[in-house]
């Protein structure tokens, strides 16, 4: 009885996709059902501890992957993962869950398309989501509906960009914090 089956059973069709890597399980769920999913996981599977919430910008990832694949398997036909239809959503929000009883960890992911950057806040389930959500907003521009105090956390309020997006250069675009006075 693996964790995967438990999660599958609990979530039913809410679990869209599973990814297993070196024993770490992550499950992708629909974006607008995230609060429901997390509530179910917390109440039924005992994932009572929210480790972290953060975003990932996948815009470059799929390109790189496709390139690598194209290089590797020249001519060979892919079964499913051939890019077809609309491109996958740009952003991902990952919720790291932990069960204090069984010490099992689970990553829950939602896909956030660039044209709809609003996600339901999970601060109602865990207060711990407070700052991580703010940071995700700060770094990726993903808005969390229902968050009580959604403003920039790490950068200053007037900062124009979202620095962890892949299209933002490492050395910045020359933003300077406006000095509030002149010497």
């Amino acid at each position, binding site marked *: 009885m693996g964790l995967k089956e438990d999660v599958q059973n609990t979530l039913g069709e809410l679990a869209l996709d599973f990814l297993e890597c070196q024993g770490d399980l992550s499950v992708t769920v629909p974006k607008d059902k995230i609060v429901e999913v997390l509530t179910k996981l917390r109440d039924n599977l005992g994932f009572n501890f929210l480790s972290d919430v953060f975003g990932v910008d996948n815009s470059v990832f799929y390109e790189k992957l496709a390139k690598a694949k194209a290089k590797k398997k020249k001519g060979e036909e892919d079964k499913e993962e051939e890019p077809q239809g609309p491109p996958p959503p740009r952003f991902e929000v990952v919720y790291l869950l932990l069960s204090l009883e069984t010490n099992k960890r689970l990553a829950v992911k939602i896909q956030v398309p660039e044209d709809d950057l609003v996600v339901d806040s999970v601060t109602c389930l865990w207060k711990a989501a407070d700052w991580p959500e703010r940071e995700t907003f700060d770094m990726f521009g993903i808005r969390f509906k229902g968050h009580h105090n959604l403003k920039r956390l*790490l*950068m200053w309020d007037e900062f124009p960009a979202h*620095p962890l997006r892949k299209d933002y250069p*490492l*050395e*910045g675009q020359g*933003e300077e*914090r406006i*000095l509030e006075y002149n010497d």
Partner: protein
Amino acid sequence: MAFQAYGGEGWLLTKLEQLINWGRKRSPWPLPYGTACCGIEMMAALASGYDLARFGAERPSFSPRQADVLIQAGTITKKMVPIFKRIYDQMAEPKWVISMGACACSGGVFRTYSTLQGIDLVVPVDVYVPGCPPRPEGLIYALIKIMEKIEKDHPLRKKAAEIGIGG
């Protein structure tokens, strides 16, 4: 005419200036502005093993009015710049700045969107201490350098020039 002596190269004046410089040299109260890793090394320098207090740099004063040497230990981010600048501005004259650590000197390894690439972009720096982080000995050496610099100062002559007498 009486001011001539005040502004001139009098023996008394030089001795007085030496006295003032000695006082300033022996009592450089630091304003520890430790933001990151270097702050921990600065604490180590203030603690027993290295004991910055030997040089009179005891009584770290966080009020900029009371401090003489601003020890900037650690990264200054762009978010911090106005605050740091204001703290420096609020320090009473005479004041000196030690830039401790690679981050403070040049931004260090953090060549990123949010890090200021060296505090000398916003405030004048007297002594740079390289290292990531520098050892406490580095800070002590910087303090000694500051002392040497103080010794070369001409406080009374400057004051005289300021109020418009003498040279």
